[in-house]
């Protein structure tokens, strides 16, 4: 069954490449508009051999990790406060919903004005794009905690920060994981978008360089890398984490 599924997937992608090569061989569009898969592959190999691809990946990932960490830390804190203090929810809560509707690239002009063309600006865009997804999921998670968990813990003497770390966070964790997953997706879009507009290193920058050089195969190569990293992180980091948490919490 599993081998069968994998076989289908491989066959599908092989088919795409064959069709792609076929269209290219038909010479409908010139190569500088529609490159062949071989040209894209060569571009990738070139990026690997001169190290620019790895440097780009490392730069983007570093920004992602810092930005997402800020978003996770801040989002959890804000979400817990919103869930536990009604006034915070009634005031900041409505603002959070509004802010979440702003696409992360829309923060770029403000980030440039505030931080200049710097890493901090890109990290700001990444973090702000992800933080509200974490906040809202944390809020929902804490709100959905079985009240008897909190009562039992208080009954056994837990209060204040002890209650937060030993009950609220672990009890809401399955929801928080969804928040982290959404947050990561927003952060990844945010970091690439910001790099495109900041034009300051990273995969988004390499993508933009491709455009400036009219190098379509470089543009497509970078898009494939961005997609590939997305698939890897989604499928390995977050799926694994989610599976583990769901099993341990007895939710599946």
């Amino acid at each position, binding site marked *: 069954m599993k081998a069968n599924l994998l076989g289908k997937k491989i066959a599908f992608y092989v088919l795409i490449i064959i069709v792609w090569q076929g269209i290219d061989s038909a010479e409908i569009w010139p190569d500088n508009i529609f490159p062949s898969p071989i040209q894209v592959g060569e571009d990738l190999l070139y990026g690997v051999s001169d190290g620019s691809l790895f440097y780009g990946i490392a730069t983007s990932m570093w920004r992602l990790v810092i930005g997402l960490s800020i978003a996770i830390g801040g989002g959890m804190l804000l979400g817990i406060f919103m869930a536990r203090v009604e006034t915070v929810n009634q005031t900041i809560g409505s603002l959070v919903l509004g802010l979440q509707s702003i696409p992360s690239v829309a923060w770029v002009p403000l980030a440039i004005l505030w931080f200049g063309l710097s890493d901090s600006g890109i990290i700001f865009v990444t973090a702000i794009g992800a933080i509200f997804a974490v906040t809202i999921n944390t809020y929902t998670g804490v709100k959905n905690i079985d009240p*008897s968990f909190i*009562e039992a813990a208080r009954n056994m003497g837990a209060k204040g920060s002890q209650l937060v770390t030993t009950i609220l966070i*672990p009890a809401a964790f399955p929801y928080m994981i969804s928040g982290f997953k959404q947050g990561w997706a927003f952060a990844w879009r945010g970091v690439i978008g910001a790099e495109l507009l900041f034009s300051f290193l990273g995969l988004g920058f390499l993508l933009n360089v491709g455009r400036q050089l009219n190098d379509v195969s470089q543009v497509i190569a970078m898009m494939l890398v961005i997609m590939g990293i997305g698939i890897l992180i989604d499928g390995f980091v977050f799926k694994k984490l989610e599976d583990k948490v769901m099993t341990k919490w007895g939710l599946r």
Partner: protein
Amino acid sequence: MGKIEAKNIIKYFQHDGKPLKAIGGVNLTVDDGEFVCIVGPSGCGKSTFLRILAGLEKPDDGEVLLDGKKLVNTGPDRIMVFQEGALFPWLTVEDNVEYGLKVAGIPENERHDISKRYLDMMQLSQFANSYTYQLSTGMKQRVAIARALVMDPDVLLMDEPFAALDSQTRDLLLVEMQMIWQKTKKTIIFVTHNVPEAAVLGSRVAVFSHRPSVVKKSLDIDYKRPRVAEDENLGKFEKEILAALRHQGPK
């Protein structure tokens, strides 16, 4: 002076936006080492009364005294065993049992010694490293009881802990609960809607009236232990409890 004393407890519920008097002045004094079962018609506020004793809810009037001292908040001197156990699914059985000790800042090796004693008592030793989703309902309630006992509370409060169990598991736990009580000499207040269960467990049974509830009858059950539910000699106690329950007038 009793171990724990409830004085003229009054509690209103919100019903369709209007206050409804659920508990209408309950007085109950439980002596040290007593095993008191509370029975009453559904909706009479017996579980709420227990939560008030635990300090998880505030009465609208009246007060609760422990060793003559007025209680305000919840705390580990009165540990509650919840109907569904309220075990933490992210912790192992052992970590669940040690939770309260950890909160109290007791060092790890001491915690282990204490939890081991109670895991043995509740026959849970081989499940120490299991997670709660791996346990049956009966096992979960054993864990919940062990988690309460490690705190060595002055009063153990139990809110229909056996309501969700199958009858075989329940019979077993009824016997064990009596042995635990005899061994630990704890003061126990046990809420149930099951009359035979109350007759088996209680050294005294307090019957609540329909709301607004008061203690309608207090019946000492002076009979040898361990008792089992099918013992016919308990029948006359059960009849008395049932009569008191029935003697309530229309709903």
